[in-house]
């Protein structure tokens, strides 16, 4: 079997493949056995009892995916309805809020996965900042404070923090009471102690000031470590100081490479690999890439409508040839394309999608884009138009994708045709947006992104028509796919990060978007990264899931359940210490009420990120994304010129939606496992 298949030339291999059962009536089991018999690499033997899931279903299993999709939607929403949101300045303030919230949310998510809550986490951030300030405070002529060096004060307040976590954890373990009650008590104790001690010692309801260390350094013989620690906790990156003329070149290249890697990952995870590569396909791919690059250069060098159209056509053709060649090179051809059939199953969502798009266009035409007067207490006509258009067009897109999915159940041909129609509609909407919109954001960026998406969809529709879907697990291919996704995401981060961190002379002249990025964002990324690694890969992480999922069982098996819980409480109080320190260096003065009540925001962020309230399930990465969503809401609502009193309505709505969506995704994920 294997000998006949590994024929001399690629075309023969393909024709041999055509006869093998890949699709249609032959069950997944047959395809799987076929594959494991013929695959040259020792693919892990597929089990006929596992139904194979498609590439998108496989991605949805992770708890943070829902949060990532929600974050993208919220971002697009605020970006399209507000002027400054999404520019460097707006992004800086979103990240600033997200960082302190996110550090806490990640720690709280781990605690919640471990099955406990900490209601004192919010008050603890302010309390620990005050503790640090009390230790360093020693102003000539003023009362209060120990006057310690930061070298001593910071470790001391960290010890206080860990002691607080240890106390919470031990109380919960020893008393056997719900952590809700125990930490509610800690919350009140902290809240009262902050106020009491502040009044007792400094006779004020605020404690300060960190930068006195620097101001009075001369009187006190040195700055006591302020010069060392200030940059660590409060350094800022002012983008107007960082001009880089060729920034946009790197941005464009990084985003294009990132996009390509993501698409390659999709191909790798979707199609069935050949056991013998076809080098002719590689040549075709290279020709396609060359055509694409030629198109870009042509577009870059010319101007005018017809030249743009020609350039776009060349790029599109290059993409098609490139990806088709790639598939010829690596993947098995599809023998049974099915026949085109019209069924209500896909026709209904297709019609609904068309209707939604039509309504979106109607809304955009009938409302005045320039009118920034309030039509209601909440929103301007301009804003209403944007909301209606984005919402309806988004719903239309989802419905059309649903239609193509349903159409594909019967035959690949139908799916491809529906997908091509959808791509055509995306192009039409792109041109509509360009003709209607006044802002350059829509006329150039959104327009070209939509054209690129339409092109990728069209190419996908054509390639899926000629190459076979993989219906059996292939671990090496999935691993390569994940690697490509990671690489693509990294390229996007590099590209967008460069664009945010550096400016170009033209922007400075126009006075666009001055922004200061704080080092606290790095702390956030570092903390989230370390926690994610610990939770996913370490022994301790496994134990966290275990004690949250079934404490008694894990204890019986030999997991130190009580110790794990105490360590989790200590992790939360460590995070509170970190946030308190960041606040102390940023604000110099900390109010006695700082942080009170924020514990619920941490919990919301964790839940939005896919963490179960019942414990035993969740993701730190999701919690980090949840914190970013909350920060986007906090910054987006005022920047869309809405009344920010409504922020909490938005938060409540998001929480409810998130819980419902997560529950749905989780049950689907478990059902399809």
């Amino acid at each position: 079997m294997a000998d006949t298949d590994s024929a001399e030339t690629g075309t023969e291999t393909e024709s041999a493949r055509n006869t093998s059962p890949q699709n249609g009536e032959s069950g997944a089991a047959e395809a799987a056995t076929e594959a494991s018999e013929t695959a040259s690499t020792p693919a892990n033997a597929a089990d006929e009892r596992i139904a194979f899931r498609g590439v998108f279903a496989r991605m949805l299993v992770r708890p943070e995916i829902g949060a990532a999709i929600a974050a993208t939607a919220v971002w697009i929403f605020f970006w399209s309805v507000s002027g400054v949101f999404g520019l460097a300045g707006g992004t800086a303030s979103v990240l600033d809020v997200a960082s302190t919230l996110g550090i806490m949310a990640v720690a709280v998510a781990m605690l919640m996965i471990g099955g406990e809550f900490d209601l004192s986490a919010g008050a603890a951030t302010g309390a620990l900042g005050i503790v640090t300030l009390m230790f360093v405070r020693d102003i000539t002529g003023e009362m209060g404070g120990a006057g310690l060096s930061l070298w001593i004060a910071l470790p001391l307040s960290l010890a206080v923090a860990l002691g607080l976590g240890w106390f919470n954890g031990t109380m919960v373990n020893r008393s056997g009471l719900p952590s809700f009650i125990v930490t509610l008590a800690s919350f009140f104790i902290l809240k009262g102690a902050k106020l009491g001690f502040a009044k007792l010692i400094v006779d004020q309801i605020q404690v300060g000031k960190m930068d006195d260390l620097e101001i009075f350094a001369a009187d006190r013989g040195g700055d006591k470590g302020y010069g060392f620690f200030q940059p660590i906790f409060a350094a800022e990156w002012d983008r107007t100081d960082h001009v880089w003329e060729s920034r946009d070149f790197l941005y464009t290249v990084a985003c294009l490479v990132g996009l390509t890697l993501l698409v390659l990952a999709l191909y790798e995870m979707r199609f069935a690999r050949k056991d013998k590569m076809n080098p002719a396909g590689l040549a075709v791919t290279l020709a396609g890439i060359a055509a694409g690059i030629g198109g870009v250069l042509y577009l870059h060098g010319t101007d005018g409508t017809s030249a743009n159209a020609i350039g776009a056509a060349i790029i599109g053709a290059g993409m098609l040839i490139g990806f088709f060649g790639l598939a010829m090179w690596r993947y098995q051809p599809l023998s049974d394309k099915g026949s085109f059939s019209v069924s209500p199953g896909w026709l209904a969502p297709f019609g609904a999608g068309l209707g939604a798009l039509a309504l979106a266009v109607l809304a955009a035409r009938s409302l005045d884009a320039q009118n920034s007067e309030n039509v209601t207490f909440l929103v301007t006509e301009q804003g209403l138009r944007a909301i209606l258009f984005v919402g309806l067009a988004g719903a239309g897109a989802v419905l059309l994708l649903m239609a193509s999915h349903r159409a594909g159940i019967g035959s690949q041909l139908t799916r491809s045709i529906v997908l091509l129609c959808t791509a055509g509609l995306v192009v039409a909407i792109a041109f509509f947006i360009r003709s209607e919109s006044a802002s350059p954001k829509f006329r150039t960026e959104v327009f070209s992104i939509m054209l690129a998406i339409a092109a990728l969809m069209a190419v996908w529709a054509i390639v899926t028509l000629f190459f076979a879907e993989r219906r059996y697990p292939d671990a090496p291919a999935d691993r390569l796919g994940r690697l490509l996704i990671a690489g693509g995401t990294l390229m996007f981060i590099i590209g967008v990060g460069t664009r945010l961190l550096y400016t170009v002379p033209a922007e400075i002249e126009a006075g666009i978007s001055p922004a200061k990025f704080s080092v606290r964002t790095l702390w956030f990324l570092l903390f989230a990264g370390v926690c994610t690694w610990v939770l996913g890969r370490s022994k301790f992480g496994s134990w966290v899931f275990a004690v949250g999922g079934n404490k008694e069982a894990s204890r019986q098996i030999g997991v130190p359940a009580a110790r794990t819980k105490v360590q989790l409480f200590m992790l939360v109080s460590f995070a509170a210490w970190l946030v308190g320190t960041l606040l102390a260096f940023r604000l110099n003065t900390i109010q006695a009420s700082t942080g009170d009540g924020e514990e619920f925001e941490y919990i919301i962020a964790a839940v939005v990120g896919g963490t179960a309230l019942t414990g035993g399930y969740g993701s730190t990465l999701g919690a980090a994304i949840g914190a970013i969503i909350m920060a986007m809401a906090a910054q987006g609502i005022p920047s869309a010129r809405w009344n920010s009193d409504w922020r909490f309505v938005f938060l409540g709505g998001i929480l409810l939606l998130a819980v419902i969506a997560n529950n749905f995704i989780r049950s689907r994920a478990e059902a399809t496992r």
Partner: protein
Amino acid sequence: MTDTESTSSSSGTPLLELTNIGKFYGNIIALNGVTTHVEAGKVTCVLGDNGAGKSTFIKILAGVHQHDEGEFKLEGEAVRFNSPREALDRGIAAVYQDLAMVPLMSVWRNFFLGSEPTKGVWPLQWIDKATAKATAKEEMAKMGIDIRDTEQPVGTLSGGERQSVAIARAVYFGAKVLILDEPTSALGVKQSGVVLRYIVEAAKRGLGVIFITHNPAHAYPVGDRFLILNRGQSMGNFGKDEISQQELTKLMAGGAELEQLQGELAAAISGVD
């Protein structure tokens, strides 16, 4: 009835030897004068109706509780465990009916929970996933258990499969004595058969098995020794050659009462006819 205890003493020291074990919760006598032993490669069944003291008995063996009276010898040495971990370290593994697994965690994580294989040096130690998955699959295959996918959550397994994962885990981690707490009580007929086969399989591999059940029909085919408890008291400790299944059933339910019940039932049925 009490002097049937010291009958079939085997050659060499038994794995576990319990003499006159008693346990009190305040003034409540939960367990009194229980005597039995467990040999390597043999199955000792503990039978009793609800409230007979079976749970207290196994919790003492597994280190969850400590005995107040009598002698508990492991391989000839008197012991007293303060925690399940201690008992586990000495080779006594308990598999509880509903507490055995963390349902949302994958099969391989459950299999290695508490004893994960790691790579790297502290503090940079990570779980060796590939080894863990392969070992879990292989070990379960050795017990004759074919698991679909070690990544699937244990909660999606059937009751019998869950028990079998727990048994395979205990065997792999070098248990000498395996305590099974009512492994068949929540299962259907076929699944119970599967679990009973794993019990025999575990005994064949040289483990001493303690099988707690209230179903004599499950206990008799696999057991080599039967300890019968009733209201915290030992009703006897028999070798297989000393007792028949019918006698076992009779003893468990308190003899005379069951006979009376049978009589009444027979009368009711003939009345209907």
